């Protein structure tokens, strides 16, 4: 008598894998500069969490009912790869948020400290200087404001 048990696809495991992949791919979404970018880190963690639930469920099936959900070995590999993706997504989340509080930074209404630094051609430029009329501006209208953007650097 042949084995009559119908084998089923372990969809929980595959769904876990796809969710884990999604959690990691959330990092690529920042390059699209979406309006809802503040929600993306949380979406990534949410996807990673749900992925874990499905991975556990999938492994339970693979090992609990090996006759129905075949491939203990392949299931383990898929779960391991998914776990790695989840790990990287969660690590990125904490890594990206590990930034200093900057309690002593100038606040709204406070005066921004003046400074002098070299520009891209090595010429010193001060903050006060940036409020001078632009050299190409024949009307001589000084800018009303200057936007200071501190950034991590280019690599």
């Amino acid at each position, binding site marked *: 008598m042949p084995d009559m048990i119908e084998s089923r696809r372990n969809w929980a495991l595959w769904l876990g894998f796809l969710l884990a992949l999604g959690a990691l791919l959330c990092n690529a979404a920042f390059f699209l*500069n979406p309006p809802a970018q503040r929600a993306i880190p949380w979406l990534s963690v949410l996807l990673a969490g749900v992925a874990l639930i499905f991975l556990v469920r999938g492994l339970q099936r693979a090992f609990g009912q090996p006759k129905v959900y075949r491939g203990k070995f392949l299931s383990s590999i898929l779960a391991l790869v998914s776990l790695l993706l989840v790990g990287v997504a969660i690590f990125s989340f904490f890594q990206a948020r590990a930034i200093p509080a900057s309690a002593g*930074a*100038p606040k709204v209404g*406070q*005066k921004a400290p003046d400074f002098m630094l070299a520009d891209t051609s090595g010429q010193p430029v001060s903050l006060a200087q940036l409020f001078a009329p632009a050299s190409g501006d024949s009307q001589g209208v000084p800018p009303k*404001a*200057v*936007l200071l953007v501190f950034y991590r*650097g280019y690599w």
Partner: protein
Amino acid sequence: MAISVDPPQVSRDLCRKAGYTFTFLSDPNAEVIRRYDLLHVGGGSDGHDIARPAEFLVDSARVVRWVNFTEDVRVRARGDEMLAAAKGLR
């Protein structure tokens, strides 16, 4: 204008590639970054000190009118947010 710990040469390459025409300043020893309390110790890819991302809109009296400190380095002030802050000044 932008400030980072990158040397002028690196910022020049970035400006050329990205087409930036605004003022780009170099603070290789993080002196100004420290004065603004924005130093991220060991935050660089090779463990060196860099600036945490932050944006300030400063008026001609050098008074800060708008600030943005992100909680996540992947989330930055969008161009339209900064433009709206600048348009809100009178």
